[in-house]
């Protein structure tokens, strides 16, 4: 993958939003995103292991929303795949999609760290 895990344009607009609302907004937002993503990933893992499609759908939907807002489009796309699997009542390919999501989150995290250093 050669694209960034986080959309630069989205990050820039969030940074601008933060510059007008409060100096800590942007770093706080990135922090909350990381914490939220870790929590959602843990529940997604449990839902897939337990074959709970409704829970999988709910968590994937929530993480998709958070990812899109922060500009993590790759993560959002995988969440959408998981959501579709859950709607189809099928978990075939779900563990592989989750592994992709973990890798994509790791990429996003390293980009967040770079952002934090710049900020």
């Amino acid at each position, binding site marked *: 993958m050669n694209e960034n895990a986080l959309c630069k344009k989205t990050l820039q*607009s*969030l940074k601008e*939003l*933060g510059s*007008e*609302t*409060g100096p800590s*907004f942007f770093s*706080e*937002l990135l922090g*909350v*995103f990381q914490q*939220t993503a870790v929590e959602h990933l843990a529940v997604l893992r449990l839902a897939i292991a337990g074959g709970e499609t409704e829970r999988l759908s*709910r968590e994937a*939907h*929530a993480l*998709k*929303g*958070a990812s*899109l*807002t*922060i500009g993590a489009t790759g993560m959002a796309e995988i969440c959408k795949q998981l959501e579709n699997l859950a709607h189809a009542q099928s978990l075939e390919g779900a563990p592989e999609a989750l592994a992709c999501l973990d890798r994509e989150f790791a990429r996003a995290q390293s980009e967040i760290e770079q952002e934090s250093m710049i900020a």
Partner: protein
Amino acid sequence: MKILVAEDENISRMVLEASLKKRGHEVVGLENGLKAWEAFQREYFPMIISDWLMPEMDGPALFRKVRSVPRENYSYLVLLTSLEGKTNYLEAMNAGADDFITKPFDADELTARVQVAERILGLHRHVNQLEGLLPICCSCKKIRDGQDNWQRVENYIEIHSEARFTHGYCPQCCEKWMNSNSDPEK
């Protein structure tokens, strides 16, 4: 304007709150429909922006509750959604939604929709004023204005609103006039 935001997803709520505050609005952000409903019962919010899927109480359920309360002032209800499809759109409209914002929202679109809300709320206030109690003569139907002058209904409405009248006869008066061969007003 005071805006109530109901969104269970932290990131979306934080960004939405910051975007609205940046535009000078006062925002109360809560994480589910039930908390939003409790807040609404305590005080009036001219605008509510709510997510669709939430634990405890979802967006349409919140809107149905809000619409069930007879209040003098109108609340403009906007549903946040990433769901598509006509059925969902209709369900939300039936629950009382005035407008929709698709997630992740675009800052310009948000500004535009809040402006529309402000315009509609302004019109509602104006209508409320017009619908307030007016002293009217039982016989000639003239209305007493604030200066104690009795005015014809059409004059009063033309002064207090943008409405203008075109004069004509309704079918019943027209028929009466044809039969009596005289002006129905006389």
